[in-house]
């Protein structure tokens, strides 16, 4: 391939973040806005994960019967992966709170348009 997997994954993350910011800025529907925000979070997580990737490496799980030297030289870097687990859960919970607020606001205004609800 012309570009390696890590670089491609970083580009994908960047594209997701850009799509998300674009959506959060220009979409008027609140639920779509929240979905766009979810994409920004996904992009940041993907970015973090692709940092730990090692070309030609193996998964960082030490299985019985594996040679220690082989593992220590080829395993990918697990720290970012551990962080992403937390980050995914935080993102999902934030999303849930936002959707809850949107449901309440829909009852009040009968609309989920950002310009109607969140205007001045």
């Amino acid at each position, binding site marked *: 391939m012309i570009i390696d997997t890590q670089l491609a994954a970083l580009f994908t993350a960047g594209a997701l973040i850009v799509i998300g910011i674009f959506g959060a*800025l220009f979409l008027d529907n609140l639920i779509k806005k929240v979905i766009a925000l979810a994409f920004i979070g996904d992009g940041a997580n993907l970015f973090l994960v692709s940092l730990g990737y090692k070309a030609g490496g193996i998964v960082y799980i030490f299985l019985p019967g594996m040679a220690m030297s082989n593992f220590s030289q080829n395993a990918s870097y697990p720290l970012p992966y551990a962080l992403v687990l937390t980050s995914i859960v935080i993102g999902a919970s934030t999303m849930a709170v936002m959707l809850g607020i949107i449901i309440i606001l829909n009852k009040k205004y009968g609309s989920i348009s950002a310009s109607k609800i969140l205007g001045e």
Partner: protein
Amino acid sequence: MNIYDIILKKIKDIRMETGDNKPVTNIAASSMLTAEITLISSILIAIVILRLLNKNLMIVLAVLVFVLIFMAMPIMPKLKREQNDSLTSMNFYVIIALGIIVTLFYWGNLNV
């Protein structure tokens, strides 16, 4: 017509444009005036810090900004209208700020 009346009239005009029909009270006008003076004086003082970079640049900029401010005189009502609670404008400024910060840090450090 003294200066206070001119300012009061200007504020009223800007209020008209935005469709804000609250009466302009004395306190509101005088606080607008205070804010205006504070804003202008602090901008002009802040420009003087540029002397550490380049003295000529500072003088030119100070004069330029002074003239610009004088032309756009009641700044405060415009500033207040700009900084409202609407999500669109907040989003806009946030993204602009992100762009400015990244550009400044990235290019400012590489090329200084």
